[in-house]
């Protein structure tokens, strides 16, 4: 029984990470109707930006100047109103406040990055064949992956975690503080996404712009701005996901996200591509499912059964567990 609960907790911790990325995928799908293959790499890249901000060699966070490589003298510790912006050192990790500062700054950068990507790259292919936008996201995927490889190198780097104390003992199982934090953040984000789309006027506008651009244009909604907002917010959610995934998986590397992205897709589709609840539940289901297969069937079967089940579930519920059923119009 102890094993069962340990695997359950372990699966849920991994699943929460899938769920976080799936949440970003769901967000972008609802907001722009695009399946975003670049989501993982966008998250990875913004996480790297966060990583370089949190490093003591501060100028290194200015992307692509490369000054840090040769001018290590330019180490500084910027202070704002006497509050050191960089809190902690390379080895002992960030303090919680420092983490928060880095998080806020990075999410802001990611927000802008998402908006720019939409404006510059996605916009020209919108309203055309759906596949075009998907191929553009594949292009962004390759671009960001290679850029990170070039800029930061392929070697994994440690990443600070906000909560790093002992694991919390629940009696039946133990869970690390970071995993709990990730679960909580996933739940909070899930509720936030739900409230955004269901209860706010802005969210309604974003949804309308995705569902029927021309009609919502007539209703006075600035569809272009809504799409940009959709991408920006999805990038921000992805960034939060990345900053939680990196410490959970022993550091960040350019290829950090590919595996997560595949399981994230699986999670998002399992839960239903238009459901925030589905994303998180789907993620945890995939994570727990994998753990259980490893424990009770055999690890060789882990992927086979996990993905096979997803196909099977989709055959029974074509729009996922929580997705709105497709309406056939005549």
């Amino acid at each position, binding site marked *: 029984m102890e094993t069962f609960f340990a695997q359950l907790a372990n699966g849920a911790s991994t699943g929460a990470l899938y769920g976080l990325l799936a949440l970003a995928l769901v967000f972008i*799908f609802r907001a722009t109707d695009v*399946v975003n293959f670049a989501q993982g790499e966008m998250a990875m890249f913004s996480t790297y930006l966060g990583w370089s901000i949190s490093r003591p060699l501060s100028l290194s966070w200015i992307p692509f100047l490369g000054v840090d490589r040769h001018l290590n003298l330019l180490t500084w510790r910027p202070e704002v109103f006497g509050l050191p912006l960089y809190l902690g050192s390379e080895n002992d990790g960030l303090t919680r406040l420092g983490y928060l500062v880095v998080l806020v700054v990075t999410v802001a950068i990611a927000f802008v990055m998402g908006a720019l990507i939409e404006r510059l*790259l996605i916009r*020209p*292919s919108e309203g*055309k*064949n*759906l*596949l*075009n936008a*998907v*191929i*553009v996201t*594949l*292009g*962004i*995927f*390759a*671009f*960001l*992956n*290679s*850029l990170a*490889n*070039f800029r930061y190198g392929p070697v994994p780097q440690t990443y600070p975690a906000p909560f790093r104390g002992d694991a919390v003992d629940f009696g039946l199982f133990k869970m690390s503080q970071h995993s709990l934090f990730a679960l909580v953040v996933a739940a909070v984000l899930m509720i936030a996404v739900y409230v955004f789309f269901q209860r706010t006027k802005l969210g309604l506008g974003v949804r309308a712009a995705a569902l029927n651009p021309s009609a919502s244009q007539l209703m006075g909604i600035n569809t272009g701005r809504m799409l940009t907002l959709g991408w920006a917010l999805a990038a921000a959610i992805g960034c939060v996901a990345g900053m939680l995934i990196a410490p959970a998986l022993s550091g960040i590397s350019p290829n950090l996200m590919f595996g997560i992205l*595949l399981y994230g*897709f*699986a999670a998002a*589709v399992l839960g239903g*591509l238009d459901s925030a609840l589905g994303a998180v539940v789907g993620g945890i289901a995939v994570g727990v499912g994998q753990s259980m297969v490893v424990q009770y069937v055999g690890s*060789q*079967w*882990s*992927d*086979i059964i996990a*993905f*096979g089940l*997803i*196909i099977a579930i*989709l*055959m029974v519920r*074509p*729009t*996922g567990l929580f997705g709105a059923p*497709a309406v*056939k*119009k*005549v």
Partner: protein
Amino acid sequence: MHQTAHYRDGVERFVPSPSEAVLLAALVLFCWKLYGGTENDAVAGLSSVVVVVVAWVVGVSLRAALNDMRWWLLLGFLVALIVPWLGANTFQVGVMSQVCVFALLIFGLNVVTGYTGQISLGHGALVGISAYIIAILSSNYGWNVFAAMTVGISVTTAFGFVLGIPALRLAGPYLAIATLAAALIFPPLLKLDTFEDYTGGIQGLHETRLSPPGPIESFLKEHAPSDAYQNDFQRRKFAEESYLYYISLAAGVVGLVTLWNLGRSRFGRAFVAVRDSEVAATSMGINVPLYKVTAFGISALYAGFAGAAFFLVIAFVAPESFDLVNLSINPLAYLVIGGLATTGGPVVGAFGYMWVPRVINKIATVSGDFDKLQGAMTGLLLIVVMTRLPQGVWGGVRRVNALSWQRLAGDSWAWAFQRSPLFWAGLALAAVVVVLIAQFIGTVWAVFALALLIVAPHDVWSGAGDVLRRLNPGWKRNASIQADVT
């Protein structure tokens, strides 16, 4: 969304008007000679220019007389026949064989994703199933390769119908992920201990490559170009690669012709009808589920052939060979780049699939430290093509082609006069930079590039103009032309 060139009798004509031929010939030669990197670049560059000029002149003069695709088909086929003698070495011949292999795969994807509109990310698994069945039968049970191929292709087709079943219930991204899951299941299945005795597990299966029958081999060895193939090993390789190339070419040509025929038959129309409106298609008497599954089945038939050809050319299968990105995602991306739901698009796509990474690798290597950026370059290329030529390269070429030539010439001048002096200054600056760079790196290829631009000014430039036009929506084409092409 696709555009087809239609002539007066309403028959969809396959392929190229002169401009397309010139562009294609230039593209092919450019990549070819470029990557060849033979010692005498000057000769290569010059001969490319000559070929392009001849192709253009012939094309222009033939256009009126031979407004019939058969001539172009023949011409293309003849060029394809002498490919082993055009290539600088056997490696290039081998790559051309793989162009045929992946063309077959992309033909299949075109049926299911291009015509029928069902996104499939699982075709890598289909290629893998075919290749593995052939490998197992021929290396474990000593079957004749061609007999094994029959079985492999049939089984793959059957699997294609199975893969099509989700298409009956799933749509759009859900189907894409379901097929993706199928592709992800495949490699771990091969590695399972249960099947290891048959599949060779992680080590994969080797097969000696098919060598040409005696007379063919000696013929090819005798006629190998002597400057490129000096010793016996090279000549033997030449014979082997050429033989495999002709087999793949035969498969590729059959694939191309059948795809083209299918596209303009009631099946092609029904596939597009299913994609555009299922309800209307049903009312017109089309059994939508049947056609969806049929599309997957036909597509798997192509994938099965691709797997067979893959096995012949690569002669090695391992679970890692059938990874998601290389065999499922990239072919789809290059299909879209080539042009969805067209006949020529997949061919362009297959060329791109094999040659773009090599050309980009070359660029990256030349630029020294930036070899890690080749992924970024590929990504940029995908983005640029998709945003600037939303209907793919083939669609873009067709679009240019549909315009009348005189009008284009006139338009080009009008366009030129409408640009601001600033624009021309910028262009001149860019040109100066280009020339300067050419000065530093070498002139032969700069001359070649410039020659290309001078030889086909209207056509090539209007292609570029098409790009520029998108950047400058202020410039509108004559309305009547617009109606013609949209």
